[in-house]
């Protein structure tokens, strides 16, 4: 799989190249700003773009805007945003438009190389990866809606779903059995009154509702 990296700090860019190479990606290009990123994605059509949120020239949300362009123009390229701090609006912008192949992580997570690689692979395979801190902050905001009917355990499970984990991953993280997780998830679906269509679709809807990106139905 090929990847493109956009990060303005040269030091960190070198580190990211090494990490992605270790994860088995072929780094086709590593650039320092959003324009160069779009050119590189257009040229290489990678499976993954790893993008810093703050980049020149204005150091605000260049990365987020580039990520939205990439997801729209080249849907086969998954994007992972790296941010210095949690900005829930960025995460919401990204997740409102797309529910697969997106990730939003804090920069310091890169240091946990194994976890970071797992998250990046998950996104490249079409999954999602949200930073636990992003999730915690979103959870804080959405307290007054149907989500308030969830038990603390169910909220934990939903938060892990939002991070992009599978049932097995959730079971491992909470140290419970797979069937217990399935039961929690069914309770969540019931409490959020999600239609009994296929499981993946309901899962995405639950996460979206959790993130406040979709209105409760």
């Amino acid at each position, binding site marked *: 799989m090929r990847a493109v990296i956009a990060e303005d*700090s040269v030091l*960190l860019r070198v580190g990211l190249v090494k*990490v992605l190479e270790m994860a088995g990606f072929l780094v086709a290009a590593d650039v320092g700003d959003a324009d160069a990123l779009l050119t590189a994605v257009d040229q290489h059509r990678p499976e993954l773009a790893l993008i810093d949120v703050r980049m020149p020239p204005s150091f605000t949300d260049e990365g987020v805007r580039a990520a939205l362009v990439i997801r729209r123009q080249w849907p086969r390229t998954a994007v992972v945003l790296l941010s210095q701090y949690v900005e829930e609006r960025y995460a919401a912008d990204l997740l409102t438009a797309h529910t697969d192949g997106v990730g939003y992580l804090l920069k310091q997570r890169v240091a946990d190389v194994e976890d970071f690689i797992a998250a990046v692979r998950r996104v490249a395979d079409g999954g999602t990866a949200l930073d636990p801190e992003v999730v915690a902050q979103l959870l804080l905001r959405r307290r007054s809606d149907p989500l308030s009917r969830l038990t603390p355990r169910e909220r934990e499970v939903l938060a892990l779903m939002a991070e992009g984990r599978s049932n097995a991953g959730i079971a491992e993280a909470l140290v419970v059995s797979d069937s217990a997780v399935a039961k929690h998830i069914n309770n969540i679906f019931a409490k959020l009154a999600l239609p009994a269509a296929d499981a993946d679709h309901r899962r995405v809807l639950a996460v979206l509702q959790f993130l406040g990106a979709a209105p409760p139905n």
Partner: protein
Amino acid sequence: MRNFRTLRRAFLRARRDTGFVAAGIPLHLALASQWVWGVTIVLKANAWAVVPIPFALFLVGIPTLTAVQRHRCRALLGVDVPRPAPTPERRWPRRAVRWLSSARTWRQVGYHLLLGPLLAAVELLVLAAWAAAVAGVTAFGYASALPVYQTLLCTAGGVVLLCVAPWLAGATARTEARLAPALLGPSRNERLRRRVEHLAESRTDLIEAVDSERRRIERDLHDGTQQRLVSLAVNLGLARATLTDLPDDARTAIDEAHREAKEAIAELNDLVRGLHPAVLEDRGLDAALSGLAARVPLPVGVRVDIGERAAPVVESVAYFVVSEALANVTKHARATRAEVTVERIGKLLRVNVTDDGSGGADASAGSGLNGLARRVGSVDGTFRVSSPAGGPTTLIAELPCEL
């Protein structure tokens, strides 16, 4: 040698004082002439109706006279007579009315018209004392016709006057140096008002300077140290993941280093957040406070309703208040939840942090609350804590949105 220096200083001082006093004579006499003019009109022509004319001429001349006196004080004595604030009104008739009705104009009139002739008399006396002193001590030179004892008397008188004249000149100069600023300068009220304005301005500058310095440090740490630490941690993480065939103690060392690097990043993040979080500058209070609340280990409701953003300094004080308050809640309050609201009431930003804990917070003892009150006070805000034993604790800070 020492005596010589003392003598020289005394001489220089006497010269300065006398020069100052002498320069005052024509100025003050000029005013005395107004009196002569006025009195003559009345006595000779018995024409009371014409009296206002010299007086009006005098009034017109007041600003110039005052300026000349101010210059005399500064140039000859080194005493600064501050210039009163200019009359704010621009258009002529109203400006004149304002000028005529202000107390400081009449203080100047008093100085020039009443005190002036008196001062002129004293100043003339000083010069006369000098003249007599010189005449006395040099009596031997020209008074050979007089009997010797009279000449001796003259000389003795001259010597005494030579000692008295500098003292008299000094006393006159000192008195004038006090009178001129009091009557020609701004009044006490005006001086205080100006001082307060100046202090308020310089305090605002200082606070803004401190705040922008915090931001600069934040940026430097973020762009430099933080990136370097993350990069270090990434490399150590890579080493840990790839170097699997190392001896155990080498692996332990790498694990340890990796963990330390990650802790250093976390500590640096906390430090930077305490200084001035980047999210506050970029996204404002709402985003920064929810980030803060999400890291507190108990449920915190956040509601920010302020419309347009407040001044950066005010935002950072508000952030600091909530940050400290939540830290206190976590540490001391045994609370199960907390509420943070920030709202704009007119020109005030009102920050309210409430928890359902055990209460009993004390703002007086050298606590964090004390520091909070100081920081709020630095932007002219008010700070209240209500924390009865048994709770709940409510902390309210009201800050001006603009400095």
